């Protein structure tokens, strides 16, 4: 392209970046300015009516907020940070998004291209650092590459199995001028996010499902990412297949659905975990057989024929060998299989789940959510909050016991309602992700469950909540311990509580300093009223509940164990 062009027909790289984001229909950015990204923030100033920028208090929060935003809204989350420390501060969140398949575009400033490799001020090898934890990472050194790279970034982030993309833009590329034209990417020869569905696989899957007497489905986030909730429901109902969800698959189908048997894995529900080792056909849909779901692979579902639906070929046969592999988007593959099935009934098999549900209720749930006397229990709080919201809220959690209690006891009526760090287990995720979720779904109630440990990892985001009036309901389950680590110490380390007890600040006073209304509850009698007050309050609210110091999350399959190792606690045993 050797056209002559006048200075007027050119725009700066920063302006080109903003126009590219607008072309991708970006409405919200979470970010934090700094030297090497200042030209972009300057251009953003001209477009502040079109793109809302949320200034977080630490870059880690920008990325987690973008994750929460993407997870509730079906959009690609965008984070904007400066070079060096700005970029390295987002790496945890980028890794988290990679593990949890969250579509993100992260834009980081970089030192001017002439300084690259010279250990310049705030220079970091961002591409080298993020390459293993991104779907694509690209350094833009020339202004003319900006629209092209942004277009590819959005295409790659959101298509196929979604994931994070990092664009690292040299400062001179932001400042130099070039004519602007934008073309959306819809094809890359080296990348095929729409694999052809093999008819033979569909037929083989349908035949196996038709022959099954004791089928069990495992529902993962792939269903939600494919927007295939309705297709899944139609499939499960027609074939009459009970299912369990992975932590990230929760909320794909309403908790109250008669085929919904709850959550899988280490702290999952008894019936789907036990029935995994008794079913004859196991149908995994958009899940990846994570070790927290499977435990010991040598004893996992050995009796079953396995059908694995996934869009990522690298997941097929990675952890568990499938009898039938169905590569493709669940929105496409599920209806193809459903179409080959007649209406089935597995009433007797489904009946077999009931005793385990009963057993779990008697041994674990009843005591956890209706303890009657003694200190308040974590599950009790989650249960009361979900009831008070009519099970309609978005639940964001941090990591640890608060997360397992949140995922076990929060109930859902709507998809994209569970925002949690599944694969990476990132403490400090909950508060900023919940903020992002509220920005992404302003019409919904967002309840954030955090522990006293995790809250203090990103508590500075009270500032963001204050500045933008973000109406999140923060429920702090305070046991003055790093509870999940303490639980493992109690069970597996001879009750040697090494570095897990915490001396905590007055959280309500801290919230108050940020203008966030708060209330601390110690007595059970106050709890219902406080939850009501929290939900009725217009604006953010911190509800601190002092919970049982030595609370435990049960059931528990110890790491690397199998269903026969399930611990129920309180002197109960499975058999």
């Amino acid at each position, binding site marked *: 392209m050797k056209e002559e062009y006048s200075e007027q027909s050119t725009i700066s790289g920063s302006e080109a970046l903003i126009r590219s984001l607008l072309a991708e229909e970006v409405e919200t950015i979470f970010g934090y300015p700094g030297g090497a990204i200042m030209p972009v923030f300057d251009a953003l100033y001209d477009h502040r009516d079109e793109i809302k920028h949320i200034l977080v208090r630490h870059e880690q929060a920008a990325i987690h907020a973008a994750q929460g935003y993407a997870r509730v809204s079906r959009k690609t989350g965008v984070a904007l940070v400066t070079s060096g420390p700005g970029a390295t501060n987002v790496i945890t969140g980028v890794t988290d998004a990679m593990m949890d398949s969250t579509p993100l575009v992260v834009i980081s400033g970089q030192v001017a291209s002439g300084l690259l490799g010279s250990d310049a001020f705030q220079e970091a090898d961002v591409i080298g650092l993020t390459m*293993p934890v991104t779907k694509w990472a690209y350094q833009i050194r020339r202004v003319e590459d900006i629209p092209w790279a942004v277009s590819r970034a959005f295409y790659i982030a959101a298509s196929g199995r979604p994931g994070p993309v990092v664009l690292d833009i040299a400062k001179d590329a932001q400042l130099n001028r070039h004519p602007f034209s934008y073309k959306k990417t*819809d*094809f890359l*020869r*080296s990348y095929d996010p729409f694999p052809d569905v093999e008819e033979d696989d569909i037929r083989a899957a349908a035949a196996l499902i038709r022959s099954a007497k004791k089928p069990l489905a495992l529902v993962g986030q792939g269903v939600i990412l494919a927007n295939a909730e309705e297709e899944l429901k139609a499939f499960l109902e027609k074939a009459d297949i009970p299912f369990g969800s992975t932590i990230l698959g929760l909320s794909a189908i309403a908790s109250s659905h008669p085929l919904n048997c709850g959550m899988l894995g280490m702290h999952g529900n008894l019936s789907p975990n036990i029935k995994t080792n008794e079913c004859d056909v196991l149908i995994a849909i958009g899940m990846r057989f994570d070790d927290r779901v499977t435990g010991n692979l040598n004893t996992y579902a050995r009796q079953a024929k396995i059908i694995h639906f996934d869009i990522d*070929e*690298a997941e097929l046969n990675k952890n568990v060998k499938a009898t039938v592999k169905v590569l493709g988007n669940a929105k496409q593959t599920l209806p193809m299989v459903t179409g080959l099935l007649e209406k089935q009934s597995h009433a007797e098999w489904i009946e077999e789940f009931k005793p385990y549900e009963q057993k779990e209720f008697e041994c674990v749930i009843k005591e956890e959510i209706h303890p009657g006397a003694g200190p308040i229990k974590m599950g009790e709080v989650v249960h009361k909050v979900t009831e008070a919201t009519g099970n309609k809220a978005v639940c964001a959690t941090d990591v640890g016991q608060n997360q397992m209690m949140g995922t076990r006891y929060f109930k859902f009526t709507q998809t994209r309602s569970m925002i949690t760090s599944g694969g990476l287990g990132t403490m400090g995720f909950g508060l900023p992700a919940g903020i992002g979720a509220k920005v992404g779904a302003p019409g919904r109630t967002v309840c954030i469950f955090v522990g006293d440990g995790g809250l203090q990892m990103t508590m500075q985001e009270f500032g963001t909540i204050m500045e933008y009036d973000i109406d999140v309901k923060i429920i702090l389950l305070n046991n003055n311990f790093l509870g999940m680590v303490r639980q493992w110490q109690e069970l597996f380390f001879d009750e040697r509580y090494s570095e897990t007890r915490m001396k905590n600040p007055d959280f309500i006073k801290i919230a108050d300093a940020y203008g966030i209304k708060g209330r601390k509850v110690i007595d059970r009698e106050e709890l219902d009223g406080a939850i009501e007050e929290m939900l009725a309050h217009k604006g953010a609210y911190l509800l601190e509940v002092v919970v049982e110091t030595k609370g435990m999350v049960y059931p528990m399959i110890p790491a690397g164990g199998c269903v026969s190792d399930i611990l129920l606690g309180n002197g109960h045993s499975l058999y």
Partner: protein
Amino acid sequence: MEDKTLYTITIFSENTVGVLNQIATIFTRRQLNIETLSVSPSAIKGIHKFTITSYADSDETMKKLVKQIDKRVDILKAYFNTNEDLVHQEIALYKIETAKLLATSQVEKLVRKHNAHILDVNEHSTVIQKTGHYKDTQALFDELAESIGVLQFIRSGRVAITKSKVERLSDMLAKREAKGENEQISK
């Protein structure tokens, strides 16, 4: 290396910065050592070809590795083979003292026996070239080292070509481009 098989991994990629880094990371994560590595432009403009050898305990490990490499956005295609499926070669260069070469007829015999070539001779040193499998280039090295000594020795990574009929990259690309056009039309 007992119980382990030597696999040859062939990868076609876009010629972008950092592809080798992306590939190497996947080997590292799976605790696989790269034994040899050879990279060059392929017959198709803009596409690079990597030939990597690595020891692994099973085809399963290789399948997982190759799928994870193939998954990277900049990778066009990745596959693996064992030695039986391949015609493969390495090239080795040996530098010896010219004076020792002239002193006896040993070197001439070795060059003939191993079907090697002399590439360069000057008053100080002589460079011999030998192509073949690893054991062939190693055999010449051992004999030279034992008899007159080797000043310098270098061996390339493996280059390999499959014996069977496999889908040619150009055909695969044509299919991809056609699919891309269809996708665009259907929009």
